Every structure is written in C-alpha cells, then in structure tokens.
C-alpha cells in the first residue's frame, strides 16, 4: 500500500474528547456516571455467592447486573437463561417483533478501522434517490413487514438531515414503525426527523473505553466520543419515543462494555422514564482454530450471558438479535431474551429490487439470510408469536 493515511499516526489525530464546531454540547451527568462505574468494575471480584444472590432477587440492581456479567456467572448460564426467559415472557408475552433494515446510502466520512464502510475502503458507494427509496420500501412492504430501520453511512454531506427526513416521510406511507440508525445529530435535528415520522433512534457506542475508542475511530465526527455517548439523550429531548444502545462486543473488554451499555440505558431510563429502551448485541466473532483461548473473546456462551444479563437487568427493554448471528443462535436467543428479529435482510445498498443498477457494497456479512416468511415460520415453530407491529400512531 503506497497511499499513507495520515491518521494512522496518533500525532495526526484530532482530540477525540473535544466537541467540534456545530456539535450541541449537552450538560448531562450520565456520561460521567457510566464511565466511572465502568472503570470501577472489577468483574474478577465476583463469586458464585453474588451471582446466586443476583438470580434470587426479583429486582436487579446495577450491582447485581455486574455480578451477572462476571466470569463467575458463566457456570450459571442455564439459570440466567431461565430467569431471563421468565422476565421476557412477563413483559412481552410470546411476541417477537419483526423488522428489516434498509440501507439507503453507504457514503461515510469516518475512518473506523474495523468497518467496511470506512472512508478509506475502496468499495462501491451509492445513495438511493427518492424514487429508488420508494421502490425499495414498496418491495419490503409487500413481504408483510410493518417496521423498518433506515440506515445510512455516516456522511452529513452525502446524506444530510433533509435527505434522511425525506426517507422517513416516504417510509410513513408504507410502515407503522420507523427506526433510524444514522450519524449522531443535534436535538433539533432529531426533532425534525421525528416530525418526518421517525420514532426510534439507535446509536452504537461501539466501545465505552474512550482510549480504545480513540485508536479505532481515527478520523471523522464519529471520533468525538462525548458527542456520540450523549446521542440517545439528545434524541429523547428531540421527541423520539425510544432509543437503542449497543457496544460492539469484542472490540474491547466486552464485560466492561456490556456493563456500560446496560448502565447507560438504565440511567437514561431513570432520567426520562417515558423513553423506550432497546439493546442490540453485535459481537466480533472470535477467530476460530486459534488454540490460545482469550478470556475476552465473545463466544456464543458469553453472548448469551450478556443478552440474558441485559434482560434480567432491564426486563422491559427491547432486545434485537442481529443477522450477524446464524439461524441456530437467533432461533434460540428469541426463546430466552431477544424480542426483535430482522428478516429478509440486505446490508448492501439498493438490493431489494432487481432492476436497480445503483448499488453499493455491504457493511458486513450476514449469517442469517432467511426471508420474512422463513423467519415468520421459524418464530411460530418455537411456539412464539411473530408480530409486525403493535403500535398506534398518536
């Protein structure tokens, strides 16, 4: 490689803790509380005793949540899953919500070294025109889905707020529930998108360890750690009904990141009791055939541990299981704790309709390529009830 990326040298990177011009500064104590708790979290101090206690109580405190995420809880995985299942059924009955993501653009201004969309990757970039968005949405709506998640790469230039707003307005014609997974923005921009029809905003923090974050997100507005961590609060202030949280498990110490994710959501819910809370649980899969077992790898057991702990800690939260996971894992996790599952997923740009030649490459590889009908039947096979939406616009 002869083209040198200047941000690969630490001295060329901007300060990741300083807001950039135009970024709304939110006075909030949540960030500090989350980081302090995460830094103080010593998961090796927990023993069987604390884990048993955490499983015994009906109300799960942040301290209990810490015990459930600790290595000491791994031998209790079956008990955790059982308890998580009871909590899930208590709050959601047998419902499993279905949705699909729609990537409308993959232009990105960020340089995040692990991401397929990053601005230095030579991939096919594309941005759907309004008519194409409409056609894609029509094709998706035909499958029976009523909830859509609109995604873009993080480029304010190529996918400005107006453009995303237009996509929301089109989506309103075909869907009952509209979520967004786009770049973080200011409160008034969230308010605008809410007016255009969006009700849910998800922002993945990736990792809550700001030092690690700095090394992975080397350029672009995503590099600004505090602006990202306060996104959910701005979205709620902007009038969104709900917000989603996630750490990309395995990027850094997954136990600390899972703790921070859960506690972040917990504090936000306490501050804004009306906000609906959602978790996603993406992970970097450990490299198979590696003889040395890394204790920080997120194998399936650890993934189930985290998902079950999220459920027990926040029994009312929506939990989405990603298409990065395979059919076997997804069909089992909906029995335990997940309440939302995507189907008919395409993570490229413009792939829902065949005659489209404006296509862009995908962000990651999916492991579960089943269409809506197949996932619908799989949910029913587990004795659960697929739900397209139970939402009334008011």
């Amino acid at each position, binding site marked *: 490689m002869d083209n040198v990326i200047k941000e690969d040298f630490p001295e060329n990177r901007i300060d990741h803790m300083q807001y950039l011009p135009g970024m709304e500064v939110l006075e909030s104590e949540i960030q500090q509380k989350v980081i302090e708790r995460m830094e103080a979290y010593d998961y090796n101090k927990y023993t069987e005793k*604390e884990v048993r*206690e*955490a499983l*015994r*109580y*009906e*109300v799960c*405190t*942040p*301290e*209990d949540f810490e015990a459930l995420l600790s290595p000491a809880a791994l031998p209790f*995985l*079956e*008990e955790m*899953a*059982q*308890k998580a*299942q*009871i909590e899930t059924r208590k709050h959601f009955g047998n419902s499993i919500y279905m949705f699909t993501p729609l990537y409308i653009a993959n232009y990105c201004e960020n340089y995040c070294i692990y991401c397929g969309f990053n601005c230095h990757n030579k991939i096919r970039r594309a941005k759907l025109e309004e008519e194409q968005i409409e056609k894609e949405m029509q094709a998706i709506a035909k499958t029976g889905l009523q909830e859509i998640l609109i995604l873009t790469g993080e480029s304010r230039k190529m996918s400005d707020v107006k453009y995303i707003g237009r996509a929301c307005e089109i989506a309103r014609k075909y869907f009952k529930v509209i979520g967004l997974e786009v770049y973080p923005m200011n409160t008034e921009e969230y308010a605008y998108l809410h007016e255009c029809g969006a009700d849910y905003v998800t922002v993945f923090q990736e990792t809550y360890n700001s030092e690690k974050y700095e090394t992975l997100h080397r350029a672009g507005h995503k590099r600004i750690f505090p602006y990202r961590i306060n996104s959910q609060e701005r979205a709620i202030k902007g009038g969104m009904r709900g917000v989603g949280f996630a750490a990309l498990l395995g990027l850094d110490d997954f136990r600390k990141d899972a703790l921070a994710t859960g506690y972040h959501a917990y504090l936000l819910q*306490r501050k804004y*009791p009306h906000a609906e809370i959602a978790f996603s649980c993406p992970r970097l899969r450990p490299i198979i055939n590696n003889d040395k077992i890394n204790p920080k790898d997120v*194998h*399936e*057991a650890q993934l*189930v541990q985290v998902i079950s702990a999220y459920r027990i800690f926040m029994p009312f939260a929506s939990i989405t299981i990603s298409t990065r996971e395979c059919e*076997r*894992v997804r069909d*089992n996790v909906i*029995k*335990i704790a997940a309440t939302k599952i995507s189907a008919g997923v395409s993570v490229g740009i413009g792939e829902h309709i065949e005659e489209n030649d404006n296509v862009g490459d995908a962000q990651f590889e999916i492991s579960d390529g089943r269409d809506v009908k197949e996932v619908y039947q799989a949910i029913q096979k587990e004795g659960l009830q697929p739900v397209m939406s139970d939402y009334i616009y008011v």
Partner: protein
Amino acid sequence: MSERNKQEDKLVIGGHSFDSRFILGSGKYSLDLIQAAVEHAGAQIITLALRRANQGGMANIMDYIPEGVTLLPNTSGARNAEEAVRIAKLSREVGCGNFVKIEIMRDSKYLLPDNSETVKATEILAKEGFVVMPYMYPDLNTARDLQNAGAAAVMPLAAPIGSNKGLCTKEFIQILIDEIDLPIIVDAGIGAPSQACEAMEMGAAAIMANTAIATAGDIVQMAEAFKLAVKAGRQAYLSGLGRVMEKGASASSPLTGFISQ
C-alpha cells in the same frame, strides 16, 4: 447485594444524617409522655403541628421535647399549596430549623393527601431552602415530580391515616423504593410493629408512626416496640432478605443446550 450493605448506615435527609429510622408523631397523647416516648422510640425526628398560640404562658410542647431532636413541623390544616406554604413559613419562623412535612388534604373524610397540590408546594418550598418531606399517595409519577421539585424525601402512605391497617399500598411503595433516588419514608396507616418491620424489610428508609403508639395501652412500651421492629426490619434488609421469585423452578428443557464454541 453490596449496594444494600452500606457500612455507614445512616438515614440522610437533605444533607442531615440520622441514626434512627423511626420518626415519631407527637399528636394525640399527653405532653408529659412525650419525653419518655421519644426516648424509648429512639427517635431523632418528631413531627409537630402549628396552631394558634394560647395566651398566658400555657404549657408548650417544645418544653417537653428532649434536646437534639429534630423538629419536623407539618402543614396539617392546609387545603392547597398556598396554605401549606404559609404554614411552612410560619413554622420556620418559630425558629426550629427548616424541615417541613407537607400535608395537604382536601378531603376531610379519609384525609387523603392531594398529590398535585403537594407537588406545587414542594417546588415552592424547596426553592425557599426548606428541607421538604412531602406526604403523598404512593404514585410513581407524583414521586418523580416531587423528586424533580426538590423534595428531600418522599413519604407515601401505607393506609388511610389513623386506620392502623398496615401496608395496604405495599406493591406501590415497593415501586417507589425501586425507582426513586430519595429516602422513601412510609407514613400513615402503620398500626403495628410487625407492619413497620415489613416496610423496612422492603427497603423503606424510615417509618413514621403516631396513632399506633398514641392509642396503645402503654404508649412508652409501644414506642420501644416500634423502635425494635424498625431496627429488625432494617437489619434484615441489609442482610439481603429478598423477595421470592414467583417462579423458581427450572424448566425441563434447557435453554442453553444449543451453544457451540
């Protein structure tokens, strides 16, 4: 549950800390029993009401309250926020600190507190520097409003005042304990030490009682019985007495059998 196992177990209200978690009411019994009752109850906070003063140097309750006990004047008699604010300000002017227990009743039959007027009064008095302890019907939304309005504690009722019926509102008080970051002090309706103990086991920060003691055969003995019950309940809570899960048994088919490495 180390969050339930704090080394320094103090009741902190508006920056003031107390060892005792039993708040004694001073109504309905004779002045000469007050000192013994306070002492046997181990109470560090006692509630009082404000009334027109008689002329002529009559006996005053303040002469009977042991020194060092924090006075918590209530606003009984107030029917709305404005009246409660007036009573609170007069109480502070007597010169015994800035604590106030807001009681606003528009209903003379059941004496149930008016939650919305209570929120208004809390906001005004907190801004004026009072340590505000509002008596309320245990409603989560109201409790959050009170917290946002600057309350130093929240005092939900267990049952109608003076009824001695115990924890009729148990489930709702538990929700306040779980959700509100302020001391939850169970007030009104606690009729027996066992009920006080149960509320403390649930995680209540303190208990307030009056009628149960004032109407007992032996007021002083009953005051002590309450002290012991509150202490026992607190200790049980700190020791990790939990509520039992409704469903403890394991399902026959394991949920985690699918996992592969």
